[in-house]
């Protein structure tokens, strides 16, 4: 008996109990849908983060202090000594409040240099950015983000207004365009002030972070090494700074998320496994119910493998139908999520292929035992079974 005939018998078996078959597939449907939609959320967030990091400024180099601190002069020195760096800008940040009139608003305060705008790929909507002289003379000027403008000034022109930042008065000289993003890389409530002013006002003499901009993206590895060498020389051979190119950062974050995705998929596939047990359960019931049919088929000359094939194919058909419906449902759920929440989703082809094959494999694995049981029935016992 060929596989087509076994499939035909299997189809008949499923058709005989449509409602039950549908209920049986439910477990697999939910399992596959869970895998696909959860992975799509994770994939979506990876894409979102990647896009954000790319937006963060092309050719960005991040230098974190790991024990040593930087000065404003360090930034200038690096810019001078490393030829592949177009600009280096110091950065320090803290969270505080901004006040205008009677309105208070929670905000991030960042002390930066004039190159910051270009290095971090920000755009100015009005006014001007922090200038070289602002830094030089510790001027109390601030550039605030659009969100802060909306919250604080509610539509009024903020330029030239005096705001209180961290207890000190500042004049608003410019407004920054908001950047998209929800993972903390771009705070929307942001006020930028000259780095030197920040050091004084915030009473932070030290700087934790420098941002560098590459002249050429290809030079990233070489530049990272160069910067490390400079600081390592200064600290007597110890690694006191973490230098990372944007490329490496992307890789690191994607890696972390990939692990998360795998975990999610693993958890969701437990549902699939449970679905498989459901299939086995129903197949066992089906074998018992159809004992007489099996006996008859054997009396008519069905060999063990014919019966085995019939029941195995039945289990696999059920699980694959569940898998297909699950892919459809998972896609739908993922679309709904991206439509009705802030999460972005992306259904990946690999998650579809993987979960569908997993569903089929579950059908085979959990179908084998009932099928073997059916195939082993003695024809006479099966015929006599009432």
């Amino acid at each position, binding site marked *: 008996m*060929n596989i087509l005939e076994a499939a035909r018998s299997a189809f008949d078996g499923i058709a005989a109990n449509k409602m039950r078959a549908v209920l049986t597939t439910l477990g697999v449907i939910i399992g596959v849908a869970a895998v696909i939609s959860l992975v799509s959320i994770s994939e979506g967030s990876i894409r979102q983060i990647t896009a954000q990091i790319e937006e963060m400024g092309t050719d960005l180099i991040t230098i974190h202090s790991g024990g040593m601190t930087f000065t404003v002069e360090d930034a200038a020195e690096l810019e001078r000594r490393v030829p592949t760096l177009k600009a280096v800008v110091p950065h320090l940040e803290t969270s505080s409040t901004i006040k205008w009139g009677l309105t208070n608003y929670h905000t991030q305060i960042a002390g930066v240099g004039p190159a910051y705008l270009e290095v971090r790929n920000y755009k100015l909507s009005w006014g001007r950015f922090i200038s070289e002289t602002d830094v030089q003379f510790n001027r109390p000027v601030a550039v605030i983000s659009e969100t802060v403008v909306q919250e604080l000034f509610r539509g009024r022109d903020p330029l030239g207004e005096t705001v209180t930042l961290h207890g000190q008065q500042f004049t608003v000289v410019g407004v920054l365009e908001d950047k998209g993003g929800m993972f903390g890389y771009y705070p929307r409530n942001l006020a930028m002030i000259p780095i030197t002013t920040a050091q004084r006002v915030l009473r932070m003499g030290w700087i934790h972070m420098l941002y560098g901009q590459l002249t050429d993206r290809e030079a990233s590895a070489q530049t990272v090494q160069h910067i490390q060498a400079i600081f390592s020389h200064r600290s007597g051979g110890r690694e006191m700074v973490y230098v990372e190119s944007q490329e490496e950062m992307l890789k690191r974050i994607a890696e972390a998320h990939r692990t998360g995705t795998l975990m999610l998929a693993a958890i969701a596939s437990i549902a699939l496994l449970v679905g498989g047990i459901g299939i086995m359960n129903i197949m066992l019931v089906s074998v018992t119910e159809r004992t007489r049919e099996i006996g008859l088929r054997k009396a008519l000359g069905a060999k063990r493998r014919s019966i085995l094939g019939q029941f195995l194919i039945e289990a696999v058909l059920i699980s694959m139908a569940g898998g297909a419906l699950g892919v459809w449902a998972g896609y739908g759920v993922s679309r709904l999520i991206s439509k009705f929440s802030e999460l972005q989703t992306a259904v990946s082809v690999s998650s579809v292929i993987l979960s569908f094959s997993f569903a089929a494999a579950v059908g085979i694995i959990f179908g084998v035992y009932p099928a073997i049981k059916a195939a082993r029935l003695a024809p006479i016992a099966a015929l006599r079974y009432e």
Partner: protein
Amino acid sequence: MMALAGVTKTYGGTRPVHALRRVDLDIADGDYVAIMGPSGSGKSTMMNILGCLDRPSSGSYQIDGQEVAKLSDDRLATLRNRAVGFVFQTFMLLPRQSALRNVELPLVYGGVAARERRLRALAMLEEVGLADRGAHRPNQLSGGQQQRVAIARALVTRPRFVLADEPTGNLDSRSGQEIMTILERLNGEGITVVLVTHDDRIARHARRIVRLLDGVVLSDVRNEQPLDAQAELERIRQEAPVGANNGDNHGSSSGAAMPHGLTGGDDR
């Protein structure tokens, strides 16, 4: 030729039931044998062993000199498929399949190609007078028609033996008689027929009657004057005419009249 020699079949563990005790029985090709006995006498067990559905606990069962007990399960399946046709009391048709598909089933397991399968199944349905019922499901057929489908299924692989287990047990007398006519005709064509029954009247159609009791052969006699199923059927038809086809009987009075053609009357 089917030959049972010293066949014992025991069921169960702690309190074993001896369904058959050292039974010797030879069934010649082309014979028409009725196996009789009350329930529990071992007649179904004997039928299962003859039909290769079961193996004897001890003793030997040979078909044409080949020892059946030594065959693997798959070889037994092939043997059942090719050599044996089963007719059951409860018809045992697959309820969701058409009559045609039911008849095709043994050919499916015999590995016959779809086209040939269809043709052979159709021919066989025609032979049992159900050519126009191929598309019907069992529940759309009468009991007698269902049993005829079952017989067509039993015959479609052209087996050498037909084993019928109470084939008329669930049928009214007229349908039962139709079935007996078909069995008689098959036997006339050279097929060995083994009939398991507890009904004396049905058994008298056979040319040899084996009586079992408590797993042993009580008697084994030749029936020198078997009932003529065809003639019986015509007599029933005349007594209770159904439809218009009793005109076929040429108006002659029935009982003693020799039927034309199909019966095994010449073999007497």
